[in-house]
């Protein structure tokens, strides 16, 4: 297994190809453009399709068509483009179509900037489109994890017949890190007995639709979706624990913010302070089980984000009033600095003693 140096955005593309994805529809936007660049070159080599759409609105609807036809398919964008896709994402969830959507988040709101951010958290985990639905949201923190999670993303999408979002930020997309690529393995894409592919002699007619005009049926459909989400919510929580066994102050952070928090934990541990990091890998389902594991030793939680405080709301829900929850964040494309987080930790530890 050879190690190689790879850019995060390219790793997403390589991970997708290795997962058997052969269709990509997208529209260029910084800071994710290396991903379409990579796939534009690679897809034809593996008999796949890279298609540059006229807009993100078109991209996500092309994904709708290709997913309905049974293909492993993906798109990618950054904040503004993902906003444009929200209608389509709602339709995909409503029609129960599996696909993977990548958001390499940049500073917002509006045109914002192209620097790294995590401020699309609400949009991803609370449902940025209309109606009651959920996306499974994965948040890698390294280039290696990007590759690994891309395979899982397609599997989860097929397993739950639901869109899956992989959420990174400009740093993860742009950085290069060593990765180890496992040998090409046989990909088994599950059968899709619901795909609408033309009858081809089949007796039943297949329809891909999110339209439920009769309220009774629409309610039933919603309940069915939420039974599915309940199963996913129970079975798919993922997180990383770092120095949590005896942690009195638990930092909660994902993606790039979590990398920085790890350094803070190291500094604190070197000083003998019981600080640890809980890194959600799935943002939805939110890893509430991890909070149950830490609540016995934890005296306080600190959510560290590249936003004005979004995930902290889920941290509060998970902690449910049992412990104080604080927030520290940088926004607009600014990264949290380890020293500043450390100072925040010092303040909170002092408060705990008082």
């Amino acid at each position, binding site marked *: 297994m050879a190690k190689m*140096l790879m850019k995060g955005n390219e790793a997403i593309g390589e991970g997708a190809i290795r997962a058997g994805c052969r269709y990509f529809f997208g529209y260029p936007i910084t800071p994710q453009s290396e991903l379409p660049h990579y796939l534009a070159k690679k897809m034809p080599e593996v008999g796949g399709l890279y298609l540059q759409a006229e807009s993100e609105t078109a991209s996500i609807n092309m994904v709708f068509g290709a997913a309905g036809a049974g293909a492993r398919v993906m798109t990618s964008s950054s904040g503004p483009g993902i906003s444009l896709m929200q209608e389509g994402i709602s339709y995909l969830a409503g029609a129960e179509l599996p696909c993977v959507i990548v958001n390499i988040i940049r500073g917002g709101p509006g045109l914002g900037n192209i620097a790294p951010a995590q401020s699309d958290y609400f949009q991803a985990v609370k449902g940025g489109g209309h109606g009651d639905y959920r996306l499974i949201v994965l948040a890698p923190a390294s280039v290696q994890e990007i590759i690994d999670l891309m395979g899982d993303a397609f599997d989860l999408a097929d397993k739950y017949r639901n869109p899956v979002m992989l959420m990174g930020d400009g*740093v993860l997309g742009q950085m290069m*890190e060593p990765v180890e690529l496992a040998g090409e393995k046989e990909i088994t894409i599950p059968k899709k007995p619901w795909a609408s592919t033309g009858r081809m002699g089949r007796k039943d007619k297949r329809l891909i639709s999110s339209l439920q005009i009769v309220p009774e049926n629409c309610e039933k459909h919603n309940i069915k979706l939420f039974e599915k989400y309940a199963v996913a919510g129970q079975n798919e929580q993922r997180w990383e624990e770092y120095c949590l066994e005896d942690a009195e102050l638990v930092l909660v952070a994902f993606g790039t913010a979590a*990398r920085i928090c790890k*350094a803070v934990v190291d500094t604190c541990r070197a000083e003998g302070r019981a600080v640890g990091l809980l890194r959600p890998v799935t943002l939805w389902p939110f890893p509430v089980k991890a909070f149950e594991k830490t609540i016995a030793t934890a005296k306080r939680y600190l959510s560290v984000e590249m936003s004005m405080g979004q995930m902290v709301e889920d941290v509060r829900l998970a902690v449910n009033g049992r412990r104080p929850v604080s927030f520290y964040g940088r926004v607009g494309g600014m990264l949290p600095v380890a020293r500043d987080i450390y100072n925040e930790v010092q303040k909170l530890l002092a408060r705990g003693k008082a």
Partner: protein
Amino acid sequence: MFEGILIAGFGGQGVLSTGQLLAYAGMLENRHVAWIPSYGPEMRGGTANCGISISDKLISSPVVSEPTVLIAMNRPSLEKFEKTVEPGGIIFVNSSLIEIKATRKDVSVFYIPANNIAEELGNAKVANNIILGALLELTGVVTPDTVEESLRKVLPPHYHKLIPINRKALETGAELVKNGNSSSMAG
């Protein structure tokens, strides 16, 4: 050990690929490494820079905001990043293109006329590797042998004929700073 190296210059000076070469060498020496470029409109504006982290430990943020080493290949880069270098760090100034002096007193500054030396060696494109050679000599972050091995891996075979001149550039850069060559040192 940890080195956060910032390489900055004009677009086209090869600062991004020099950074990748260094990161690749770090990887071959089984260090934790990360490389990250500046990206966006500034790419088009003529300046380019990248940060390389090489460490025994996991790399937290790959963004090198307080470099231990700055390689300034042009004047705007020196002016922009000089103040960010960690106290006790190193600044390499490409004095072929930068006529001003660094003002920091709490860092080591080396003035290397990299473009002139590269032309003397017979290939203007190896200027970055002259400074890289000096960096390796002073920090020991990776060995010149590993850099050569990296070149062999990252360069397509038809460019392998350029490896000897690059090796020569590394050695020339190292010689310049060996034994604290005073002519290169900051005042």
